[in-house]
């Protein structure tokens, strides 16, 4: 029942948001919705983690150990985004970027978006996962083009067209899985239910499963921003309001990765893990390599972070593709840390960019003097995303690097570390340019500490905790890793 509540609460509150006329009331409803659904999510995750069992609700919803990190990510990031969006929306209204009448549609779409993301990680039916991921595209496209400027509408159009075409390929993949299910069951009761499919995975036609995985990888890969299907990602992340960029980068990409992982486990049970693992590693490596030149030559700060997301998704895919203990452990931790870090980075960047009125890195000078408190959060989250100690991403990258050395030996490990070091160096260069430079003379030194700063510092603390205190020996994490490894 609790699973139903997690999905229903944002949905019900999105309808409730239509009722009040006051901006504050709408914002309060949105925050309440996120708080309640996050609370239910934490309870559900606890119920799964402590005994290590799977919770079912009818034959539609389920939460197992694989869903737990994703549900936690959605719960934490959506709550942070809902709280931070209040300040962001208020400022947008002040500077006439957003009309007062747009507040209602913004929060209605925001809540529907979160609802669909929850649905995509809580469904046990592969068909419904597809439907909910496609629904996230339709809803978030409206949010990407929310400012209704030329660039934002262009980004929104590219996003909806590319993702709809991409996800259509995933539909072909699902048809093939269903065909495999029909053949193996000899006209029995077919459902596309993941748990049932896993139980007779070895009977599924290997050829069909392999081809279906290619289609699903291309389809969901488009949504996950994997190279070469990533072209919508920098545009959409760069043009959408910052709380939405944070949700897109921090949560939505992971929902698509979740769908890929479910198919990976299914294909592994049918034909062995080698085929799908190789594809995951291949796409992961391509995403890492091809995002680097764009990171090095970027002028737009939000596009820079979008390309960094492509790189990080690549790292996560490599970790899962490796399939050994440290690879999977690193990938799960990396996914969690990246989501938290990137969303904080987008939110703090949004605040800075609004002050300067430009996304251009060359124009963002002396942020430490202009926005001293926000810039501390910005610097911390940037260091975290770049992979600096003591933040969690450093540790997860080291785990994945260790797994590569273990599985493929010295040379591939060195290449992986070189790519990470290059991105780190690029981020340090940009940090120096933005933070350690002189401010423009027309800017005043003024920023009071507010509630939003306290909320934005919570993810930084979480990242320090995951970087300093999370070790593989912690029972909860090893349970998730072992659950995943049992499937492949």
């Amino acid at each position, binding site marked *: 029942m609790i699973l139903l509540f997690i999905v229903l609460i944002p949905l019900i509150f999105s309808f409730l948001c239509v009722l009040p006329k006051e901006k504050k009331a709408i914002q309060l409803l949105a925050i309440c919705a996120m708080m309640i659904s996050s609370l239910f999510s934490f309870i559900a995750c606890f119920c799964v983690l402590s005994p290590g069992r799977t919770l079912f609700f009818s034959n539609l919803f389920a939460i197992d150990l694989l869903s737990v990190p994703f549900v936690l990510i959605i719960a934490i990031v959506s709550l942070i985004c809902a709280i931070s969006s209040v300040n962001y929306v208020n400022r947008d209204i002040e500077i006439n970027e957003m009309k007062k009448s747009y507040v209602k549609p913004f929060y209605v779409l925001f809540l529907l978006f979160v609802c669909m993301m929850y649905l995509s990680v809580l469904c046990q039916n592969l068909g419904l996962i597809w439907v909910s991921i496609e629904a996230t595209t339709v809803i978030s496209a409206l949010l990407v*083009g929310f400012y209704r400027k*030329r660039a934002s509408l262009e980004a929104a*159009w590219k996003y909806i067209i590319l993702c709809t075409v991409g996800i259509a390929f995933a539909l072909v993949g699902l048809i093939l899985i269903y065909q495999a299910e029909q053949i193996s069951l000899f006209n029995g009761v077919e459902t596309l239910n993941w748990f049932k499919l896993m139980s007779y995975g070895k009977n599924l*036609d290997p050829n069909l499963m392999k081809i279906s995985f290619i289609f699903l990888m291309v389809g969901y890969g488009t949504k996950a921003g994997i190279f070469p299907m990533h072209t919508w990602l920098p545009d959409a992340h760069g043009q959408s309001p910052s709380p939405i960029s944070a949700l897109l980068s921090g949560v939505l990409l992971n929902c698509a990765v979740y769908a890929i992982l479910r198919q990976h486990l299914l294909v592994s049970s049918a034909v062995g893990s080698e085929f799908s693992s190789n594809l995951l590693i291949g796409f992961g490596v391509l995403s890492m390599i091809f995002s680097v030149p764009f990171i090095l030559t970027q002028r737009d700060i939000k596009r820079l972070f979008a390309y960094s997301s492509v790189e990080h998704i690549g790292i996560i895919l490599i970790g899962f593709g490796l399939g050994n203990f440290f690879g999977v452990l690193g990938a799960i931790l990396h996914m969690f840390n990246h989501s938290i870090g990137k969303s904080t980075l987008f939110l703090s960047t949004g605040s800075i960019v609004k002050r300067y009125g430009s996304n251009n890195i060359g124009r963002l000078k002396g942020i430490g003097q202009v926005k001293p408190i926000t810039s501390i959060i910005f610097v911390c989250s940037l260091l975290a995303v770049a992979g600096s100690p003591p933040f969690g991403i450093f540790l997860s990258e080291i785990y994945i690097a260790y797994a590569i050395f273990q599985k493929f030996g010295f040379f591939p490990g060195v290449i992986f570390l070189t790519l990470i070091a290059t991105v780190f160096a690029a981020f340090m260069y940009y940090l120096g340019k933005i933070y350690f430079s002189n401010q423009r003379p027309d800017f005043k030194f003024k920023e009071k500490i507010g509630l939003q700063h306290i909320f934005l510092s919570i993810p930084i603390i979480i990242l320090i905790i995951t970087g300093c205190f999370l070790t593989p020996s912690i029972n909860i994490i090893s349970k998730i890793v072992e659950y995943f490894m049992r499937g492949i």
Partner: protein
Amino acid sequence: MDFLCFIFLISSLWMLSTRNITKSVYLLIFQSLSLSILMIGIPMFSMGYEFNFFHSAIAALLTFFVKVVLLPLIILRVNRKLRSNDLVPMNMPQGLSLLIGIFLIGFSQILNSSGFFSISHLSSVYSFYAISSILIGCFYMLSHRALLCQIIGIIVMENGIFLYSVSLTNGMPLIFEFGTFFDLLVGGLVMGIMTNYIHGLFESTDTENLSELKG
């Protein structure tokens, strides 16, 4: 069934040679209408499967309401509202576009009759028409440079995918069918709204204008 499949294929091929949006939408209606009959006809006449009338009838009705009635209505309404020139710009001459369409049909036939497809249970009697429609839908989006044509292209592509699903599996689970049609309908609506916004700002629906964001 073969006649309906023929209409299904010819209507998509014809779209490639026309620059008129209204005409394209009427052709889309023809294609979707033939699909909705095929949704019930193919499972009815297929051997070795137990025919579930309720399931097939619902899928056919959904196809009819969403793809024959609602989506074409949305596209025609947006087109009328924009009052734009009905003739859309193309990336190539109409003749060449038609020629490539015929080539794609030939390619689909080769693919469908290949040993790999039959061994891997990827082909059926009607899958050739489905694969052709998927490829033609993709190509239609590339050859025609109007926003509304991209929506039409996606629907043609999805028509092909739905024909493929019914020809291969006699229909997907009902809850999934409901979900996909709902998504398609809402997606069409959102794309229609966006076309309106884009036309308002760019004073055109030519996709060439959408090339500001690079790098």
